[in-house]
């Protein structure tokens, strides 16, 4: 039996992008239906799941996957050694990555054992480096993030014309600047209002001043600044004063996997705002088909509910905001007789050019005690390798200091050494105070061969094909990573480091870009500069998947800015 629903604007995906658009359009008086494949989840429950999780570094464990809309599960950090005397590998990957230290899966909160679910199928030379994490639930993946809200650099928008590599965006920094500011106001961004130049010209100061740096971050800046490094306070969607009816950050050091007090922005904030403004949210509604009529306009979307029943939804406009993996997958599996390659795919670029920010890292014990773990989990970045003539030869990057608490890692290491008594306590304290961990984001060029397809072999519980990505990291990025290693070595020397551990294997950073690429030429791109698909006039894509250049920065603020721009276009179109 089929039930039919209708709205002015139908939005698929209730994460940061979809919720922002739904909230803007509802406030403007449009009827909005927001379809979310995952469930509603409660903040308190996620916090409790974290506290009961035996693998605290696995940021996905507190988010049980929905039966009907799974998200990738790798259980990378089953951080409990098989026995107390097993050695914990040094140089822990403290990045939000999907790779495994201990191949066994930990018990989930609640007791049921959760195993890797092989939902995102990975192939290619660097398959492991694309083990992306994302959350399918109302609120989306910003439930856990570093809250870094950087603007891209003007040159990130014109990489091809400036440096002869990659692609240009069809829009420039100046087109997005007003939207960047509006996004900062919507999310509540605190940043350095002290004249620090972050390379992206501003028309207005940050809505909030930056939080004062932790002792760890302050020492990091003091030691490195004035040498060959520029360390700055990172702009973040984290309250430095009461803002938008949410409290000031109190330093729970738990931004990932969950801010217990909503001092850090999560997409659920705008889901709530959208609902208060009149938008209707349907959770557990898994969209599996976009239907296009003979005039090449989207006529309807079809979703399955938890019982596997199909429903049809019609609207004047459709916004797909289901992240950089689920969005292209949905377009591809919507193929019909007239669109054998999928919807909005006359260019054959849907699912191609998959990008991310491949990361490498270093861990060491500094000579001086720095005490990471006081304050938010990330506060500073090294930004002087983000742009320059070298970009014609190798990738730009950002490096950032990890300010996550190290007590647990220190304890596991000290226990693995067989220490007892006062010696054990002293070693836990020494390692907790001295451990330094630095990670990086490298730029990556769009390559059509880095490709997502709908699996022909694997289907989820509802019978929907799973996403499959083939991924290889090219020399442009590898050359830069070798330079990054030299920088790490210099930093380690400046801190009088011992027990240096390089983490050279590229890690994923969950910045999924390129998969529905933006461009001015309909023959080589999927959406135009307004995120409208070239093929369907009433279909917009609100996702980092549209981004044609990866740059070096967390892409959430750019997603938010592009989404607000889509909302403006739709407001004018009504």
């Amino acid at each position, binding site marked *: 039996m089929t039930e039919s629903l209708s709205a002015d604007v139908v939005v698929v995906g209730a994460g940061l992008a979809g919720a922002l658009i739904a909230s803007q359009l509802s406030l403007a008086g449009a009827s909005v239906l927001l379809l979310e494949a995952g469930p509603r989840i409660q903040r308190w429950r996620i*916090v409790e799941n*974290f*506290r*009961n*999780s*035996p*693998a*605290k570094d696995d940021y996905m464990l507190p988010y049980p996957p929905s039966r009907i809309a799974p998200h990738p599960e790798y259980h990378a950090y*089953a951080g*409990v050694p*098989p*026995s*107390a*005397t097993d050695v914990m590998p040094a140089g822990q990957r403290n990045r939000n990555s999907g790779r495994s230290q201990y191949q*066994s*899966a*930990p*018990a989930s909160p609640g*007791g049921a*054992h959760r*195993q890797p679910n092989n939902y995102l199928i990975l192939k290619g030379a660097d398959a492991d480096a694309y083990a992306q994490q994302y959350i399918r639930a109302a609120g989306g993946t910003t439930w856990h993030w570093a809250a870094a809200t950087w603007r891209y650099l003007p040159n990130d928008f014109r990489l091809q014309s400036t440096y002869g590599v990659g692609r240009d965006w069809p829009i420039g920094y100046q087109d997005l600047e007003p939207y960047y500011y509006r996004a900062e106001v919507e999310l509540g961004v605190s940043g350095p209002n002290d004249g620090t130049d972050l390379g992206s010209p501003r028309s207005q100061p940050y809505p909030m001043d930056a*939080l*004062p*740096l*932790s*002792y760890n971050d*302050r020492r990091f800046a003091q030691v490195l600044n004035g040498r060959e490094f520029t360390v700055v306070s990172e702009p973040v969607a984290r309250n430095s004063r009461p803002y938008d009816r949410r409290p*000031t950050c*109190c*330093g*729970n*050091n*738990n931004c990932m996997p*969950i801010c*217990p007090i909503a001092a850090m922005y999560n997409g659920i904030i705008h889901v709530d705002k959208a609902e208060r403004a009149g938008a209707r949210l349907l959770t557990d509604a898994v969209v599996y088909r976009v239907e296009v009529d003979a005039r090449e306009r989207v006529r309807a979307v079809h979703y399955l509910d938890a019982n596997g029943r199909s429903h049809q939804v019609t609207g004047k406009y459709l916004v797909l905001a289901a992240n950089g993996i689920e969005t292209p997958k949905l377009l591809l599996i919507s193929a019909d007789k007239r669109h054998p390659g999928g919807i909005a795919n006359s260019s054959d670029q849907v699912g191609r050019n998959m990008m991310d920010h491949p990361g490498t890292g270093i861990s060491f014990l500094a000579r*001086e*005690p720095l*005490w990471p*773990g*006081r*304050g938010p989990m990330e506060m500073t970045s090294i930004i002087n390798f983000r742009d320059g003539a070298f970009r014609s030869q190798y990738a730009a990057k950002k490096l950032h200091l990890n300010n996550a*608490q190290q*007590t*647990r890692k*220190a*304890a*596991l290491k000290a*226990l693995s050494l*067989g220490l*007892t*008594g*006062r010696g054990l*306590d*002293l070693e*836990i*304290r*020494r390692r*907790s*105070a*001295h451990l330094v961990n630095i990670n990086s984001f490298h730029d990556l060029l769009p390559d059509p061969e880095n490709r997502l397809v709908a699996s022909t072999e694997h289907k989820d519980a509802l019978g929907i094909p799973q996403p499959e990505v083939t991924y290889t990291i090219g020399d442009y990025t590898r050359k830069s990573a070798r330079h990054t290693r030299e920088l790490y070595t210099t930093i380690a020397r400046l801190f009088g480091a011992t027990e240096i551990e390089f983490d050279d294997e590229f890690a994923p950073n969950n910045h999924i870009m390129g998969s529905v690429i933006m461009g001015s030429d309909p023959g080589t791109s999927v959406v135009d500069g307004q995120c409208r698909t070239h093929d369907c006039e009433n279909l917009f894509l609100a996702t980092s998947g549209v981004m044609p250049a990866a740059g070096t920065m967390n892409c959430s603020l750019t997603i938010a800015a592009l989404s607000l721009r889509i909302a403006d276009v739709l407001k004018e179109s009504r």
Partner: protein
Amino acid sequence: MDRRRILRSVVWVVAAAALRPRLGGALPNNEAAENTFFDLSRLLTGRADLDRQASSRLLLALEGADGAFSSRMAALADFARTHGFTAVELLAVALDAQDSQLAAVLHRIIAAWYTGVVGDGPASEVIEYRYALMFEPVADAVSPCSYCEFAPLHWTSAPSGLSELA
């Protein structure tokens, strides 16, 4: 309250009492083992003020994770008592040299108290988070993640004592 409701209440109280040992960990027939484990834990952690309830829960979890745990734990306690060990460091050195099986039990008990986690890989379980002993030697500088116990903006100051043991 009518008789039926009173009767129902009595049934619930009895049922709750029957369940309590499983939840609270105080099985009457396990009392001797509990006392042995508690005393042994005080020796192995170098702490006199361990929590009784946490001790019971850790014991249950350790027994659940390893069927041979109870007998080995008793053997370890016996070894320590027989040889008059009063410091864990000396006991560990002796066992590392003489009895790798008992040494493993010793380290497993210490790891359980320090991390609050018992079990291997897929079967691992959090028994204690806030009061896991690993947080004690750093308590003046960092607070267990999720609910900070320091004052707002505490992080701007240099931690007291920096690297010395509190």
